[in-house]
């Protein structure tokens, strides 16, 4: 009943995104003994607070628009994100960033269309009929010696890395504006990570290290900490670190702390589909063993979760599995399913002293119905001990008006289910649906540089404006 009451008070007492970050809250427990109301307040704050906003923008699932159905051509992680391959760096220069002046090398300089190569088209389609212009004589295309920018490489091409070494890094700075809140403005560094991969034959060693500073009650960051400085102090973190072996060119087995294979790998780690399933790339990684495969039209990854050994004590460590399977249905459509089941002796966020079994099962899609438009969708069912069933879903439309400039609209929904006890009433987001919408502009304005602005309005929350500068090495 107390928990239900606390949930019902959420809308009145829960801090907003930024204030949750800045306000002091009692330390959560990887320690002990906190009053339920305070814990619930902290829980509510964590649901809203984002000390660490989108951790990465280097995994762009909308790359399917450019014919990249999978991730391994550009990323060391078989499911995308973090460390870029040499090929991936060049794609970032040719496909991602805005071009200025004369351009003969980027995607904007060469537009094509896709077709079905397994069957003839209908003769009723107007293809070719309306373009009555005679083809130009067979003249040579403009010759150019221009290639990818020399700044595409690591550290803007300062030096060339050997083939067996991949390095990268990211810094993000976030500014939060909440016009309706008492404290309207805050600005702070959000991410500072270095990452890389060393490959010797089929063996790979990869990982990242960074620094972080979060409020004691924040659900973000601490799960990835290496050091244990308490309170408002800096800590070292490592989100991922693993040892892998390429069994075949298409199959990779890894052991270590790994991004959970689940759903659409988006940079917005506070999107409800990521938060509610606890499958973001910010700090939801787990230790375990995974097998990833990448075929021509089918890819997937399954992971046995051994627990997060960067949190203590052991009763908080979740064990189970997480997996996804995705099929390229066509040149412009990828459809997938995800599943996750974990069990812990006590949930590290609820801190209620009881065992917790969590499940998330859902489907997702990546679609590129138009040359400049990508659609990302995901819907997951949520099951949790002592809770009614819930769900989380999102739909994002990403329109690249010119190369490097994206306009995005996102809608999301969440119902985490309510406590399954008599007399517990449903509230928005717990027994009743809760809705949110984002309007975003994402601008890759120079090599290795990105600016992003999000206007976010979630039900029962004030409007929040987020502005982010991202620099990747």
């Amino acid at each position: 009943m107390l928990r239900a009451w606390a949930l019902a008070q959420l809308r009145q007492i829960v801090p907003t995104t930024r204030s949750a970050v800045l306000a002091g809250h009692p330390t959560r427990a990887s320690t002990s003994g906190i009053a339920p109301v305070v814990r619930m307040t902290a829980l509510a704050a964590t649901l809203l607070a984002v000390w660490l906003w989108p951790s990465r923008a280097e995994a762009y699932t909308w790359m399917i628009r450019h014919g990249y159905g999978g991730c391994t051509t550009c990323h060391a992680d078989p499911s995308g994100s973090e460390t870029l391959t040499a090929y991936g760096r060049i794609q970032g220069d040719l496909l991602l960033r805005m071009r200025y002046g004369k351009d003969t090398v980027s995607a904007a300089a060469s537009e094509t269309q896709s077709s079905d190569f397994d069957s003839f088209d209908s003769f009723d389609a107007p293809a070719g009929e309306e373009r009555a212009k005679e083809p130009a004589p067979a003249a040579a295309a403009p010759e150019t010696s221009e290639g990818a920018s020399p700044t595409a490489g690591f550290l803007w091409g300062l030096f060339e890395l050997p083939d067996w070494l991949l390095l990268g890094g990211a810094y993000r700075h976030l500014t939060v504006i909440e016009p309706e809140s008492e404290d309207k403005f805050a600005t702070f560094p959000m991410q500072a990570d270095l990452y890389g991969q060393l490959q010797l034959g089929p063996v790979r060693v990869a990982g990242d290290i960074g620094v972080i500073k979060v409020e004691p009650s924040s659900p973000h960051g601490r799960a990835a900490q290496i050091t244990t400085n308490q309170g408002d102090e800096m800590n070292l973190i490592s989100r991922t670190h693993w040892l892998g072996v390429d069994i075949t060119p298409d199959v990779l087995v890894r052991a270590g702390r790994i991004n959970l294979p689940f759903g659409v790998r988006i940079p917005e780690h506070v999107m409800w589909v990521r938060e509610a399933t606890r499958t973001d790339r910010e700090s939801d990684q787990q230790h375990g063993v995974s097998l990833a495969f990448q075929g021509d039209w089918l890819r997937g990854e399954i992971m046995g979760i051994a627990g997060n050994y960067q949190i203590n004590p052991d009763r908080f460590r979740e064990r189970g599995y997480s997996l996804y399977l995705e099929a390229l249905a066509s040149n412009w459509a990828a459809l997938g399913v995800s599943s996750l089941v974990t069990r812990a002796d006590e949930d590290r966020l609820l801190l209620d002293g009881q065992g917790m079994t969590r499940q998330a099962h859902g489907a997702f899609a990546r679609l590129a119905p138009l040359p400049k438009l990508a659609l990302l969708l995901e819907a997951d069912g949520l099951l949790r001990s002592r809770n009614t069933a819930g769900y989380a879903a999102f739909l994002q439309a990403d329109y690249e008006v010119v190369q490097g400039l994206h306009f995005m609209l996102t809608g999301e929904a969440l119902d985490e289910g309510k406590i399954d006890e008599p007399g517990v009433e449903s509230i928005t987001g717990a027994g009743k649906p809760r809705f949110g919408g984002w309007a975003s502009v994402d601008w890759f304005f120079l090599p290795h540089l990105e600016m992003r602005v999000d206007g976010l309005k979630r039900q029962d929350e004030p409007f929040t404006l987020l502005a982010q500068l991202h620099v990747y090495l």
Partner: protein
Amino acid sequence: MRPILVLTVAALLSVPFAADAKLTRVGAPSIQFLAVGPAGMKINGTSSELSADESEGKLTVTVPLTNLKTGIGLRDNHLRGYLNTKQHPNAKLVVERSKLKLPEDGKTTDGSATGDFTLNGQTKPLKFRYRAKRTGSDFHVQGMADVNIEHYGIEQPCYLGVCVEPTIKLKVAFKLRDK
């Protein structure tokens, strides 16, 4: 990025006509090709240049290779290098008219045939499928074929460790008019 594949399959079609008729291409043609790389990578290439003429019982379809588009400008440049377009700017398919089935007015015909396909200065037989629909004196034609570029002396395209399969799919569509 090195070129991926290019095939321009020029025409896979042909349209046998009355003995004295000459076929002339009209309208805007469409040439497409698909190259497949690792991890679900797909390169959809296009061109809109094609010429066709009939002479001495043979239909010759020619596609310039210098303006092929692959979706990335640098890749287009590399493609031209792989195809050796400076020495061999065109791909060509020559088909005996007698090997092709002609649809009646208002009808559609499917068929397959073999012609001599020239790419990178090398000529080899190429089997293709086609579909043709006749509307009056116009023949709407589509054709498809798979081409292994290595058979034409073209090196498998690779770039920074990412290679594409040497066999690519070709698809063309254009209209011929009996004049």
